[in-house]
């Protein structure tokens, strides 16, 4: 789509601040991985991963003004918060399911059909019998709504602010959902004993002009359809975090899973 020229207009600080604040707020409401692992300062070296996005987007969304009959609203930063949070969750849940596949006997209970209330009780009991204290239940989409049928489920009537707000509680343990989990799966975990999410750089996002000539050349190399002059009408949205997820599994298994019989313990993927 071709937009009016804006290169002579200053970027709006207010728009950028709102965009960045919305991205950060959405990230904090969506970072399900941090229900599984405690966030800590870095204490080790190596194996840190950068989860990032480097987007070249139209500048017009970040300037004030009326263009003909059009006014461009402040853009939403939510998509960046959601994307990084979901990728962080994928990193952590992938580790968890890898352990589950390797130690099926210790941590996976298969049931015929959908897990019933008694089986969810057993899931929590099993974790507690190992000396752990369930801090959260993470269910696949289909299973999270089934909790409503359970006698001991208390729906949350409070403001739900994204994935970090529980659907309710079961036996006092908050119940969350993740679209990444395969259907028919419920995970119970003790976050205090499960390991750590070392955070070298927490979620951050920055909108900036693209002035540096070397930078422009490298962008054009990666995106040959953009002419040099096109970059005057673009800004960069750079968004990333640097983290390392470690699941504590040497001495015990800090989680238990119920899975419908035949369920492949693989994360769901989306187009």
């Amino acid at each position, binding site marked *: 789509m071709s937009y009016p020229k804006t290169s002579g207009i200053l970027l709006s600080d207010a728009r950028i601040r709102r*965009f960045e604040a*919305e991205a950060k707020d959405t990230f904090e409401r969506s970072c399900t991985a941090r229900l599984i692992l405690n966030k800590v300062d870095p204490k080790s070296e190596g194996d*840190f*991963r*950068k*989860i*990032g*996005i*480097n*987007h*070249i*987007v*139209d500048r017009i*969304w970040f300037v004030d003004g009326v263009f003909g009959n059009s006014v461009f*609203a*402040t*853009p*939403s930063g*939510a*998509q*960046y918060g*959601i*994307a*990084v949070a*979901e*990728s962080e969750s994928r*990193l952590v849940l992938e580790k968890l399911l890898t352990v589950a596949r390797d130690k099926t006997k210790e941590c996976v209970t298969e049931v015929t059909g959908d897990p019933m209330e008694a089986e969810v009780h057993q899931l929590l009991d099993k974790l507690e019998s190992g000396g752990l204290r369930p801090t959260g239940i993470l269910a696949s*989409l*289909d299973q*999270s*709504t*089934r909790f*409503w*049928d359970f006698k001991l489920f208390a*729906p949350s*009537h*409070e*403001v*739900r602010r994204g994935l970090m707000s529980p*659907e309710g509680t079961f036996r006092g343990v908050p119940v969350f*959902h993740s*679209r990444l989990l395969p259907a028919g799966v419920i995970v119970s975990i003790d976050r205090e004993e499960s390991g750590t999410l070392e955070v*070298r750089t927490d979620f951050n996002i920055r909108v900036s002009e693209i002035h540096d000539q070397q930078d422009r050349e*490298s*962008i054009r190399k*990666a*995106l040959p359809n*953009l002419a040099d002059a096109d970059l005057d009408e673009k800004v*960069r*949205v*750079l968004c*990333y975090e*640097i983290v390392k997820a470690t699941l504590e599994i040497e001495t015990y298994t800090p989680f238990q899973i119920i899975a419908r019989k035949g369920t492949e313990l693989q994360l769901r993927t*989306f*187009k």
Partner: protein
Amino acid sequence: MFISYTDRDGLGKTYANELRHVLEQNGFADVYYFDHSRAGSLGLPVWGESGIPMEIRNRDVLIVMCTTAILASPPAEREYCIAIQADKLVIPLRYDDAPVPSALPHFYDSFDNSNYAQIFRIVADNLPNNYRRHCENLDRIRLTLASIQISDEHAQPSPEVGEVGPS
């Protein structure tokens, strides 16, 4: 289109019916709501995967009729939770000064006995645009998710063309 309501206050079903008529007159053929008061007598597997969850997932939009007893209705709450989780467009409609559940979007139209027909027509007229915007938002989220790069901590993510827009 799925309409979620409660009839504990004797209001929800009436307005759900009225809304259904207006939506159908505006060309929305597939309008559905479930009468929970009859669920037991029909012996239906209401909440099984082939019941209400599937009816909601098969539709694009869920409208919540927020009448005075809406907060006291677990079925309505469960319905809109399923819709929110499934990324459906969820639209609250507030009757008079009835409460609007906090999980729902904070922007909504209000109606009362005197103007419901007019308000429902406005809602129906605006639906295609609202749904288009909702889909554009979802598309931007999908595109951004597809742009995620996981790398060594010192690497710079490669540039990609992105799209932003209003929520």
